[in-house]
């Protein structure tokens, strides 16, 4: 009941303030930020009462207050809040890297690589096949020669196989699950993230060769190599600096955590290296070279990042265009189904290959369905390279993500509950 009162008060506040104010855009952005924190968080808590993950609540809240419905958070405001999403992705990547312990990698690295390889390969092939089959109905492939169809299908599939480290991390943080399903899912998601970044760069290069973008701007092998290799180098350097700070200073971790993520994202952009990979490596190095102090930084980062994550997911929800989803419904469904089937089959195959634990074999696939920020980010890269086709492709992605990011957390929650690694109570009392 208290949550409902909070939401009603927030609604009335916005209704009263918006017509009265003529402040600067900066003030409006700040107000929308605060509104999203309190509003989305409240909806997230309401979602738990009907046994849905909080993230679904955040997404629904975003959808409700975004341009598609109430428009309290308009498109210009969302653009102004873009740095929040970038910061959230940086925080997520760093935290994800920090979750990779060297011991765990040594012990389960081979298993994770095998599962990830099988899962990505099967789902990738499935999506390429379905896209090639449906190419006459897809706006960005209709009438294109077969070479282009193949190039864009590969490019599309290289993004479509991506998972959501954000959702995975958030649900694990929410439930406190640390069992074999939780660890396997997280490991596969993180490794797949690195693999997808690599394969996406390759797929984009291939697409540029098969269908040169308008203006003929190409991308060289050296550039791709630098984006990946440079990210590892920059990330390692950043991680080393963070580790030194943790060993010798260890103060003001709350602010330091935010600064690290912000600085990492900025420096990656400046040096033209892959942001996610940079932060992922930085987190990994900081955790494993920080002399046992990495846990404190992770806690500080989770604490400082909590409002940022809420807003990030709410903004992701606000970006969903229900009309686009409805229009592309007949095309999206087969792709979503084939992807899910590919993930299921690939994970089972990988688990058999790697001789994984029965629980991991049975439930891990359910944690790999979610998609969010990374997929949106990569599809935006395509839209930048191919303004027309890329934009059409992005709309299809947004429709697909709308389904996956709603269904994915629910499935992962079910997986954690059924495997016994979490309880309904642990979800209700979770972090964010």
């Amino acid at each position, binding site marked *: 009941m208290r949550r409902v009162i909070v939401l009603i008060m927030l609604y009335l506040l916005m209704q009263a303030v918006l017509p*009265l*104010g003529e402040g600067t855009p900066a*003030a409006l952005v*700040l107000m929308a930020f*605060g509104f999203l924190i*309190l509003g989305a968080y409240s909806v997230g808590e309401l979602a738990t009462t009907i046994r849905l993950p909080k993230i679904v609540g955040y997404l629904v809240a975003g959808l409700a207050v975004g341009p598609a419905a109430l428009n309290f958070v308009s498109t210009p405001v969302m653009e102004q809040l873009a740095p929040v999403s970038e910061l959230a992705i940086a925080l997520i990547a760093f935290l994800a890297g920090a979750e990779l312990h060297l011991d765990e990698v040594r012990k389960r690295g081979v298993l994770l690589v095998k599962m990830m390889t099988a899962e990505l390969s099967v789902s990738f092939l499935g999506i390429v096949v379905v896209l090639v089959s449906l190419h006459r109905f897809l706006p960005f492939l209709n009438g294109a020669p077969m070479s282009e169809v193949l190039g864009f299908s590969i490019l599309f599939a290289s993004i479509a196989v991506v998972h959501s480290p954000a959702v995975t991390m958030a649900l694990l943080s929410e439930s406190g699950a640390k069992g074999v399903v939780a660890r396997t899912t997280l490991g596969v998601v993180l490794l797949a993230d690195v693999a997808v970044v690599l394969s996406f760069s390759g797929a984009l290069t291939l697409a540029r060769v098969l269908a040169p973008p308008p203006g003929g701007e190409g991308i060289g092998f050296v550039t791709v190599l630098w984006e990946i290799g440079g990210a590892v180098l920059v990330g390692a350097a950043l991680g080393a600096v963070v580790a030194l700070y943790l060993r010798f200073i260890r103060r003001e971790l709350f602010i330091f955590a935010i*600064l690290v993520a912000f600085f990492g994202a900025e420096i990656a952009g400046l040096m033209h290296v892959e942001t996610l990979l940079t932060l992922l490596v930085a987190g990994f190095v900081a955790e494993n070279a920080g002399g046992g102090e990495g846990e404190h930084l992770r806690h500080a980062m989770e604490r400082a990042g909590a*409002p940022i994550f809420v807003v990030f997911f709410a903004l992701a929800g606000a970006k969903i265009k229900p009309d686009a989803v409805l229009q592309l419904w007949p095309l999206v469904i087969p792709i979503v189904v084939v992807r899910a089937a590919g993930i299921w089959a690939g994970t089972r195959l990988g688990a058999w290959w790697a001789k994984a634990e029965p629980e991991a074999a049975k439930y891990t696939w359910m944690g790999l369905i979610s998609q969010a920020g990374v997929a949106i980010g990569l599809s935006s890269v395509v839209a930048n390279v191919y303004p027309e086709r890329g934009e059409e492709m992005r709309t299809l992605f947004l429709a697909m993500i709308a389904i996956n990011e709603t269904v994915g957390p629910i499935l992962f929650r079910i997986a954690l509950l059924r495997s016994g690694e979490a309880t309904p109570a642990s979800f209700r009392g979770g972090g964010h």
Partner: protein
Amino acid sequence: MSASLVLILVVATAYLATHLLYEWLARRLLIVSGAEYLVLGVLLGPQVSGVISREAADSFGPIIVLGIGWIGLTVGMQFYLPRLVRITGLTFRLAVIESLVTLSVVTGVLWWALPALGLTSKFWAIVPALALGAIAVASTPSGLDIALRDRKRREPVVNQLETSLGVNAFVAVVTAGLLFSWVHRAPTTALRPPTPTEWAVITVGVGVLGGTLFHLFLGEERKVDRLVVSLGGAIILASGAAAYLNVSPVLATLVVGIVLVNTSRGRAELRTVLAEAERPFYYVLLLLAGLSWRPSTSATAVAVVALYLVTRTVSKVYATRATTAWNKATPQLGRDWGKALIGQGRLTVALALDYARRPELPIGDVVFTAALLSVLLTEFAAARLVRAALLPIVEPLRDLAHRLPWVDTAEHTAETEIPRSESGATSGVFVPHVNEGASTLFGPEVDGPPAALPEQGSTDQRTPEASR
């Protein structure tokens, strides 16, 4: 290189430099750290080196508003009613009179001077004059905080200083808030533009709503993570809404703070959360204030700035002296405790930024420059000013000499180990564990009630010794 990256690098470097250099300086020379960030901001900003352009500096607008709101909240958090009611009427009376005298004197002098110097019309002069008057009232608790951190504060003069710092902050914020309601430009979208009174009510309403939302949102939860989300949400929403309505974010969040501290059972956790982000937040705000600074185009502005500094200092010193003598409290408080109120810090910066970000108000650059210069000139010396204020009464309060060993000789200063605070910082290092006034009424909770001045005419005419 992007402006954000420059800002991050500068803050990080300055922060480390502060740890390495200023910790040493503060311990030995009682220099308060903070104002150097202001200088750094000016040096990096468009007026000097141009490393950060005007557009880039403007893009930090939301952070500035949030910083202003944060400071308002920390001021409001000190007004915990059960503690306030234990302070005697005389202590309050001295504090209120000093605040109002400073406000009146500075406002009056500048109201006369601004048109005389040709900076504004006589009609409009009251606006910047009142703004400067409000800013003049604010004093930093840095010096007191450095001198007395981790020590019990039960001496009447210390209690008086704490109360005065809190009352100063309150009067400054409320005056500025009412001023912004009074000169509010009418929105074109509203059917009937609200009156100044209505704008004032709206400002307070935003604060009450923000505080209520926090309270409802948090419920009975005590988890720090949840506290961060709800506190962050309440501050950001209240500051943003106030700024969007063009009313005072400091006043709105001051009200949020008052509501929180008086309704939440997790006051200790709230303080912990606030303290964690307080110092870096202040540094960033100082840096952004330096970036936002624009020199006045008028040469007579220098005279206004000088007049502000002189009038304020004279008012603080002599208003307290006269009021203390008039109330026959000189034996307990000494004559010069007003010197401890000369230092200015973060609330001054927040109020000045709040004024300067409104292009419709006259001579924002002059008001801003006066405030920044005052911080620059007085904050470094805040701890020394406190020492100067306390020295004359150290003899009667011998116990205080043990608690403040540095007041005896300069040599002691170098030898004295300053205890570590909760966050690990040495107490002599950084100003701002708490906001202007935040180390006062809200400050460390001592065992038992704070020492109070005996009410004038009351039967409890204890000596300072007895009052301990």
